[in-house]
């Protein structure tokens, strides 16, 4: 059995970056404050010392420059891993991501196949208000040409990040910052990868399928536990991979349970939950016993003082589950 260590998500991510830089001399890390300081969340800590300031470097404060430069490095054959300090600050780079990074392979007829991984902390739960809390996954999922991943714990974080780094496609790697230090778990010391298109069934159940990802995965699990107290047997799926997402596993589950509740932090309208509902009902229509239900953030900017109302928690999920079960 592989040697394991107990790590939080930051340490797990750091370990993935370290292993990758060791194995792949073309790997480079760049971003605001990622070099000397090791990142505001310390995910890149120690890397500059180990791999030098040419391979791990601070950039000026400009996300468009970071992504554009990373893409240029990728065109030349390097494998850049860029950090966007918060997902909320990715928008200055949106043109570079949507118009360039996502389309480069396609529009060049695969003459150029840049490998770029963009890491960014996302999500609420740290009292960050409008701009340190958002979950922009739907925007990336809707952009053809990007893989989108979001781990829910240290083990998943390392395995997914190594998978992303080793893979051939541009990746948006969303890190639920609420979980950065919240969970410790056993993580293999060495190299391992998780598949980039598979969900994890966290809990098997017969009565309803509950789908979540990122920081909502632990909340969903807790909701399932509460539901168990009420006598319901809930299947919980942690998506992990948002694009492509593991529709097969979802459909398989809903074929069994006949009921679906999806959870995310982002605002409801046109959020990823809509896609999950639409895609699952296409395949499992005949088996559905209640309308698939969404538990999400509201269609408002992310609040500050009242964020606990905004963010779906176990009880709110439970309530939606029960309404769906009693439909």
């Amino acid at each position: 059995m592989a040697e394991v260590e107990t790590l939080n998500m930051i340490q797990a991510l750091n370990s993935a970056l370290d292993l990758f830089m060791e194995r792949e001399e073309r790997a480079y890390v760049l971003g605001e404050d990622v070099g000397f300081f090791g990142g505001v969340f310390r995910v890149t800590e120690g890397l500059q010392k180990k791999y030098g300031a040419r391979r791990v470097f601070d950039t000026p404060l400009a996300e468009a420059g970071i992504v554009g430069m990373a893409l240029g490095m990728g065109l030349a054959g390097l494998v850049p891993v860029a950090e966007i300090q918060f997902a909320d600050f990715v928008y200055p780079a949106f043109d570079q991501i949507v118009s360039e990074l996502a389309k480069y392979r396609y529009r060049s007829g695969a003459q150029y196949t840049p490998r770029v991984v963009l890491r960014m902390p996302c999500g609420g739960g740290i009292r960050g208000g409008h701009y340190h809390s958002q979950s922009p996954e739907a925007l990336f999922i809707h952009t053809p040409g990007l893989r989108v991943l979001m781990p829910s714990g240290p083990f998943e974080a390392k395995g997914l990040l190594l998978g992303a780094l080793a893979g051939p496609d541009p990746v948006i790697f969303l890190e639920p910052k609420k979980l950065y230090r919240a969970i410790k778990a056993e993580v293999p010391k060495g190299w391992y990868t998780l598949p980039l298109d598979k969900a994890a069934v966290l809990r098997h159940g017969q009565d309803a399928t509950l789908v979540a990802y990122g920081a909502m995965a632990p909340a969903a699990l807790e909701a399932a536990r509460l539901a168990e107290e009420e006598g319901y047997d809930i299947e919980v799926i942690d998506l992990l991979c948002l694009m492509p997402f593991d529709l097969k596993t979802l459909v398989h589950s809903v074929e069994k349970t006949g009921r679906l509740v999806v959870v995310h932090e982002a605002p409801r309208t046109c959020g990823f939950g809509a896609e999950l509902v639409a895609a699952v009902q296409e395949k499992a229509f005949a088996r559905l016993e209640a309308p698939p239900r969404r538990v999400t953030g509201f269609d408002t900017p992310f609040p500050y003082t009242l964020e606990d109302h905004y963010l779906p928690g176990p009880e709110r999920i439970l309530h939606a589950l029960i309404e769906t079960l009693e439909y």
Partner: protein
Amino acid sequence: MSEPNLPFSILNEDGSCPERYRALLNDADLLAIHDMILFSRHFDRRMMMLQRQGRLGFYMTSTGEESTMIGATFCLKPDDPIFLSYREIGCLLWRKVDLRLIMNQLIGNSRDLCKGRQMPIHFCFREWGFPSVSSPVGTQLPHACGYAYAARELATGQVCLAFLGEGTASEGDFHTALNFAGVFRVPCIYLIRNNGYAISTPEAAQTAAKSLAARAAGYGMPGLQVDGNDLLALVNAMRWAVARARDGEGPTLIEAMTYRMGAHSTADDPSAYRSEEETARWAKVDNLARLEHHVRWRGLYDEARKQEALARHEETVRALIADSECWPPPPLDSLFEDVFEHANAHLLEQREEYLRFLAWKARRRAGEMAEAARG
């Protein structure tokens, strides 16, 4: 576009200044500004304490840079809009924004004009000429240009001032804002607080330019670099830029050289990326210390006055905190208001669904308690 030959510094080390610059600020104004800087610094200190005690979610000090904000604000008329980045509480203070409103914003309570929706220090006080602060750096810069264009159209006579940090000058919005401002010759002043750092990133890693003021030529406007730790030099440059803007001659870029004496924010620890020696070196030329030398040199100030002021400031802050902490959080409904003028059907339905959940939760809690009581 005639670039004036303004001095980088005016205050001498011993607090004196060349006689011809003395009239830049009369004694009363000078004392008032000095007192406000003293207050600002004390406020910073107390907010940091509050945050460490867990009574405030977040804070960012402007310690070390106060002359820049307060001096600049002093040079404007009260209704000239100021587009803040985030580290400029001195501007609010100088304009006498109701301190309770400032505290209420920091706490995010029911009395916060912005309904507790943003993190501390993301102020908005329309009545005092302060549009809304947001976290993404640099976004305010084109707003200032647009506002200034409108002010000219509406013949309000206003001049806009927009602050930014030297790190922020690397963002694309800096470029588009200044280029637009130059093209439209708007009455707008862009003031860079070059405090040496963007979080951990030193200015040398931010740009290879010799100065940021040098960028002004690329936008067809004058660029002035001044000693931001020297109130008189700052006021001298601002006055020139304000007069120019007021006269319809267009925008100016000012780069004020100063130092961020504290951490970037309450989430930061600067000892990880800069030396104590460096911080100590800058402390010697701290803007407040230099200004105190100057007021003392003018014979306007002594230790007794200083102690009186500190005591007065502490009393003010203490009362403020006590007041703001006794207000509840904003009401739940505030969560769903102001996205649009009227909430749309989608949001109203979400609200309804959430209220249904809260009612269910209350029933559930009541049930649990009843059960516990029976059991």
